[in-house]
C-alpha cells in the first residue's frame, strides 16, 4: 500500500519536473527573439557606454584604456561649458513654455463644449509630423528675409529679428520649434487627467465659496498632482537630450550659442572621430538624467503605496 503511493508520487514528481523543464524551454523559446534584441541593442550598449568613455577607440586595433583622458579632453573643450549651460537653458525655457502652457490649454479645452474634437486634433497635428519636417519648416519661417516670422513682425510694425543668426535669439528660436511640435502631447495627457476629476469636488468647492482660481489651486492641481510631477520629470529627461534642433537649424552656432550636450557628443564622435570623448559626454549626461529618472521612479513607487 505505502510503496505504491511512494512510487506513484515519485513518478508524479518526475512527471511534474519534466513538465516544468518543458515549460521553461518553451518560454525561453518565446523569449529568445526579444532577448537577442535587448542583449545586442540595449544591454550591451549600456555596458559599452561605460567602457567607451575610458577607452580610446580607433577602429584598427583593440581599444586602448586611457583612464580619465577622455573626460579631461571634453572638459577642456571651450564648447563644454556652453553646451551644459545651453542644455540647461533650453530645458528651463522649454519647461516654462512646454509645461505650464499645455496645462492651461488643457484646463480651457476641458471647459469647452464645442469644437472639442477639432481642437484636440489640431493641437496634436504637429506632434505627428516627423520632427525633421517641423524643424526644416521653422528654419524657413526664421529666414531673416522673406521668412514668415519677420514678415509678421513687419506687418505689426515691430522690429524684425535675426532669429537663428543672433546669439541672443538663437536658443529661444530652438525652444519655439521644440515647443510647437511637442505641445500636443502634454495637452492631451493633461486633458485625460482632467476628465478623471469628479465633478462633485468642484461643486463642493464652489459651495464653499471658492472662486475659479481657488478651484484650480485647491481641486484641479491636487487631483492631478501626480501626473504633473511625472510629466515634469519626463519632460526634463526628454528635453535635456535635445539634438535635432541644433543639428538641423544652427549647427551649434552662432558662437556656440546653441551647442547642446547631445549635439557636442555627436560632434565628438562623427566630426572629430573621437568616440571616447563622445562616450565621456554621454556618460555625464546619463548620470545627470539618471538623477531625474531616479526621482521619477521614487515618485511612482510612492504613489503605489
Amino acid at each position, binding site marked *: 500500500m505505502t510503496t505504491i503511493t511512494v512510487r506513484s508520487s515519485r513518478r508524479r514528481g518526475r512527471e511534474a519536473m519534466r513538465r516544468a523543464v518543458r515549460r521553461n524551454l518553451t518560454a525561453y523559446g518565446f523569449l529568445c527573439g526579444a532577448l537577442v534584441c535587448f542583449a545586442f541593442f540595449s544591454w550591451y550598449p549600456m555596458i559599452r557606454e561605460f567602457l567607451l568613455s575610458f577607452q580610446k577607440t580607433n577602429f584598427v586595433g583593440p581599444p586602448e584604456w586611457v583612464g580619465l583622458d577622455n573626460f579631461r579632453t571634453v572638459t577642456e573643450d571651450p564648447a563644454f561649458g556652453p553646451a551644459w549651460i545651453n542644455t540647461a537653458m533650453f530645458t528651463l525655457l522649454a519647461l516654462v513654455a512646454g509645461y505650464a502652457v499645455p496645462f492651461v490649454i488643457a*484646463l480651457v479645452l476641458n471647459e469647452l463644449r464645442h469644437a472639442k474634437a477639432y481642437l484636440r486634433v489640431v493641437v496634436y497635428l504637429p506632434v505627428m509630423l516627423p520632427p525633421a519636417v517641423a524643424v526644416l519648416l521653422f528654419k524657413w519661417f526664421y529666414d531673416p528675409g522673406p521668412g514668415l516670422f519677420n514678415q509678421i513682425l*513687419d506687418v505689426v510694425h515691430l522690429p524684425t529679428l535675426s532669429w537663428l543668426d543672433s546669439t541672443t535669439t538663437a536658443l529661444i528660436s530652438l525652444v519655439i520649434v521644440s515647443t510647437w511640435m511637442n505641445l500636443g502631447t502634454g495637452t492631451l495627457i493633461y486633458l485625460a487627467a482632467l476628465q478623471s476629476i469628479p465633478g462633485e469636488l468642484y461643486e463642493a468647492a464652489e459651495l464653499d465659496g471658492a472662486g*475659479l482660481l481657488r478651484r484650480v489651486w485647491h481641486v484641479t492641481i491636487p487631483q492631478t498632482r501626480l501626473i504633473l510631477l511625472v510629466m515634469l520629470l519626463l519632460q526634463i529627461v526628454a528635453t535635456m537630450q535635445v539634438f535635432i534642433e541644433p543639428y538641423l537649424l544652427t549647427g551649434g552656432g552662432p558662437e556656440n550659442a546653441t551647442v547642446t550636450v547631445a549635439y557636442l557628443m555627436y560632434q565628438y564622435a562623427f566630426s572629430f572621430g573621437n568616440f571616447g570623448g563622445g562616450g565621456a559626454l554621454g556618460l555625464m*549626461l546619463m548620470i545627470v538624467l539618471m538623477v531625474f529618472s531616479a526621482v521619477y521612479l521614487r515618485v511612482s513607487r510612492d504613489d503605489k503605496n
Partner: protein
Amino acid sequence: MSNRTAGASDADVRPDRRAPLGPPTPVRRSGRRRTGRTGERRAARGLVSPHTLTTTRGRIVYWTVLVAVVTAFTAIFVFPLYWMVTSALKSPEEIAQIPPSLFPEKIDFGVYMEAWDQLDLGLFLRNTVVYAVGAWLFTLAFDVSAAYALSKLRPLLGKAVLAMMLSTLMIPPMVILLPAYLTVKELPILGWNLLNTPWAIWLPAAANGFFIFLLKRFFDSIPRELIEAAEMDGASPARILWSIVLPVSRPILGVVSILAVVNVWKDFVWPLLVQPDTDKMPISVGISSLSAQMPQNVLMAALVIASVPAIVVFLFFQRSIMAGLTAGSLKG
C-alpha cells in the same frame, strides 16, 4: 503607475470587462473610446458650473473664449501647415517676395513633381515604409511572444528578465547612441556590420521595454481559466497564444502597432547614423541631408510630401494614437 494617473486608455485595453479574476478595477480608469461619452457626462461639471454657463454673462464669456481659442489654435497649429503647402506652390520669385502673398498667384502642382523627381522621394518613402513595416513585424513577433512567455509561462528567472527589460526605460536613448552605433557597426561576437542594412533599424526597434510592459500588463489581465481550459484541451502554448491570447488582445496590439510604426517614422538621429548611404535613407533624413542644395519651394514641396503620410495615418488612427499616448504617460 497607479489609478490616479490619467489611465484613459486602460479600460480600452483590457479584455475582460467582467474580470472576476483580473486585477482590481480602478474606479477612475475609463476607456479612451468611452471618454467621449463618460467625458461628456463628467464634463457636465468641470471647473465652471453648468449654472454659470446659462447666465447671459457666462454665455458671453464662454463664446468669447471659444472663438479666441479656435482662432488661436488655427493660427498657431494650422497656419504654419497652410504656409508650408502654399509656399511650395509659389514660384522661386514669389516665395522670396516681400511682403509675401497670402495666396499663391497660380496653383501649379508641378513643383511637387519636381521635388519628387529631384530628391528621389519615391525611394526615400519606400525606404521609410520598409523600415517601418519591418520594425512593426519584428516588434510584434518578438515582443508579443516575450510578453506572453513572461506573463503566462512564467519561466525561471522570468522576473529578472522582465526587470532588466524594463530597466532600459530608465536609460535615455541619446546617452547610449554612440555605443549602440558601434554595436551595429560591428556586432559583438558575430562581427557583422549592419550599417546600411534594414536590420540596423528593425532589430533595435524590437528592443522596446515599454512595449513589453504594455503587452505583459495586458496579458496579465486575461483570466487564467481561459488559458487553463485550453491547456486541458491539450492546446500547445503557441496555439494558446495564437487562438486565445491574440484575439482578445486586439486593442493593445493596435496601440503597440501604431506606436511602433510612428516611432520609426518619426525617428531621425538613429537612421541618420545607421543609414549613411543616400539611397538607404528614410525620408526625413533624406530630405534634411539634401535640403541645403534645394530651392526653397522644392524643399517645401518635399516637406509636404513627407508629412502627408503621417497626417493621413493620424486622421485614420486618431483613437489608437491618442490611447497610446495616454498609455505612454504611464511608463514605469
